[in-house]
């Protein structure tokens, strides 16, 4: 104990204590944190499976037959694509009531379960379907996609798809790392604040082009160097004030210290 007491004023002691405290809190939380409900189903009928899943996990907000409640909209007529998008990107089930459902990396359901729920919602009334493989594999024209993106999407999602702010805490999310299927579904279903872009508005070729453009933006090399988050002049201004000025003052100070 003496050895420990002697080191209690060691510079690392505070850091160590902090770490231990945080670890303890984290571990305790993970023990008591609520776990998502799981409805294990293995019947052959997809729609019935979906219905069971829906009633176990979604009905609280969307109503027992998806008619909607005060806490959630009706899902009659939203189509399979909407379910696939919302659940497939982790937005649903909603993690906490907020102005907007955030995209969450950890998806709660397997693709099979999502398909079942989609089938159930699609069985209620006709709506946009999940795009088939052929649609998603249509070759897009990057230049056309860029133009369509700037005209239809950039005002909210920013020129490079880095996202932008909407009113009252809502936002257009960044489009990096989103599956082509989900981008397509978002365009046809118009989730949350987003408008619907149906085939009369942007045809399948146009949609494929937008997806190709986003892929190109995401994968192309940063020719100019670090892109500072592709946020426009604000991040550039911040960079020059913080790093540029620090560099210059540091150099001036160093030079001033040099003997004449």
């Amino acid at each position, binding site marked *: 104990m003496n050895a420990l007491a002697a080191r209690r004023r060691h510079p690392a002691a505070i850091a160590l204590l902090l770490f231990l405290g945080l670890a303890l809190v984290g571990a305790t939380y993970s023990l008591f944190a609520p776990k998502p409900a799981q409805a294990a189903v293995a019947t052959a009928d997809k729609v019935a499976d979906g219905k069971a899943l829906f009633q176990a996990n979604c009905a609280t907000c969307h109503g027992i037959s998806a008619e909607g409640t005060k806490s959630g909209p009706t899902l009659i007529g939203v189509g399979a694509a909407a379910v696939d998008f919302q659940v497939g990107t982790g937005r649903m089930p909603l993690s906490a009531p907020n*102005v907007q459902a955030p995209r969450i990396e950890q998806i709660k359901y397997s693709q099979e379960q999502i398909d079942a729920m989609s089938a159930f919602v699609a069985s209620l009334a006709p709506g946009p379907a999940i795009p088939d493989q052929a649609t998603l594999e249509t070759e897009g024209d*990057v*230049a056309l996609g*860029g*133009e369509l993106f*700037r*005209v239809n999407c*950039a*005002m*909210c*999602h*920013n*020129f*490079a798809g*880095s*996202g*932008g*702010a*909407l*009113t*009252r*805490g809502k*936002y*257009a999310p960044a489009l990096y790392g989103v599956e082509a299927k989900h981008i397509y579904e978002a365009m046809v279903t118009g989730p949350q604040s987003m408008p619907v872009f149906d085939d009369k508005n942007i045809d399948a070729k146009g949609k494929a082009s937008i997806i190709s*453009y986003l892929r*190109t*933006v995401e994968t*192309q090399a*940063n*020719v*100019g*160097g*670090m*892109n*500072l988050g*592709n*946020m*426009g*002049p*604000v*991040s*550039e*201004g*911040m*960079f*020059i*004030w913080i*790093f*540029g*000025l620090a*560099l*210059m*003052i540091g*150099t*001036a*100070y160093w*030079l*001033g210290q*040099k003997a*004449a």
Partner: protein
Amino acid sequence: MSTAASARAADLRAGDPKSSAPASASAKKAGAVASWVDERTGIAKGASFMLKKVFPDHWSFMLGEVAMYSMIICLLTGVFLSLWFIPSAGQIPYEGSYLPLKGITMSEAYSSTLAISFDVRGGLLIRQIHHWAALMFVVSLSVHMFRVFFTGAFRKPREINWVIGTLLSMLALIEGFAGYSLPDDLLSGTGLRAAEGFIRSVPVIGSYVSYMMFGGAFPGEAIIPRLYAVHVLLLPAVLIGLFTAHIILVMVHKHTQYPGPGRTNENVVGFPLMPVYTAKAGGFFFLVFGLLSLVSALVTINPIWAYGPYDPSPVTAGSQPDWYMGFADGALRLLPGWLEFEIFGYTLSLNVFLGAVLLIPLMYTITGAYPFLERWITGDNREHHVLDRPRNVPTRTALGVAAITAYLVLMFAAGNDIIAIRLQMSINDITRAFQVLFFVAPILTFWVTRRICLSLQRHDRDKVLHGRESGTLVRTPEGQYYEVHEELNEYDRWKLVGFESPAPLALPSGKDANGVASKDAKKEIRRAKWSNFFFKSRVEPVTPAELATAHHHGEHEAIETPAGAGAQAIKQAKQD
């Protein structure tokens, strides 16, 4: 040395300068060239005046230098860019090497900027140096301005130079705006569209001026070549002219210096331009150039290829001007919509006009007028070559901080959408908060800064009178404790006592000896009120008499009554 020479050396009286060693061949040659030039231009006098000029050494005096070098770098890189840039709004399909834009119709200006970025060797690097240097120019110029303001370097005889600097700063904004509007990408076109709206918000003449500038309705084909002429010809000429006047006035006035032992209003303590500062400043230029090149090689600025060509229909989220125009954009975002009125069927858009048009000249008028306002309040007509420590003029420092706070609120307001998305807050709440902060924050920072300055001054006073707390505790035989205070040496003390703290003007009665009201009584009373505002809260510097008393007291303490010293230390600790 020949015998004749040694005989002459013997003739020299003691104290006469000894003849130096004979000049080398190369020095002789240089001398010959110099006299050839001097005999034809008479430059020797001016050159010797310049080269012998003494400058004091301090890092904060080099901020203006950073601005000067950034400007020179902009000029150099600008020449390179002008070799390839085509200032034309003529529409052509893009056939360059950037694939995501292949075949898209765009202006020649945008296409040539893409060519500079992707097809001209080293073009992108030079473009990025040009843009980063432009941002650095305005940053360093602003910080240089802060330094001049907070140290009182704008006082007589430097008021004209302050005004010139203010003009340089304002023109730099316009030059920058003209520059980043040239490439005709989506962002710069949006900026021009906004500028067109601003001009139209000017009452009565707005729409006419807008039609004149754009040669018709927006966007037209005229604006890009016109902006180009402004950006590469008109404004650089004015900037260089004003900048030359700025530098010449620095030479004529001699450089200010921070207070210190041996530094007075009549001298400058430092090193001459030749050889010390020619080497240091020359080296610093290359350092600034090198660092800006490094930044430009590593960090993208204005990725015009990602923005796409300008087209009046789309606009991108996160459309902001470069940072130095941000405060005007922020003012625009903060101004409430109900400031738009309709008078006799005409719209008066004060919600746009106040922030986007009036703010810039208003801000620079106040800035440029400040030295004259302060002189009127203080009535100080003397020349000042020794700088103030910011804490020693609390009200000025506080005013400066308040002004910067208001500016910062506006500047951050321009990024309200970026703040909203990055910090996951509501853009409406952020805007509302900034609207309130614009009025509240300057008052708060004014008050806090003045309090900080005053307590720093009190701390200085305390240090002079009681010395530095050494941390050494002494126990007396009686069992009492006291801390030993080390006395400051004369050099350190000078910095803490060598300043003025004028008393505010007494409020005049407004009547002369016979009880007759004087003509300008109102004016005098107003001035006295301002003087009170400026000088009322103050801490006087320690006088020699006070110091002597304190020393006497201190000795007394140390030798005879350590109990007293101990008690005082406790009292002091309580005060702290």
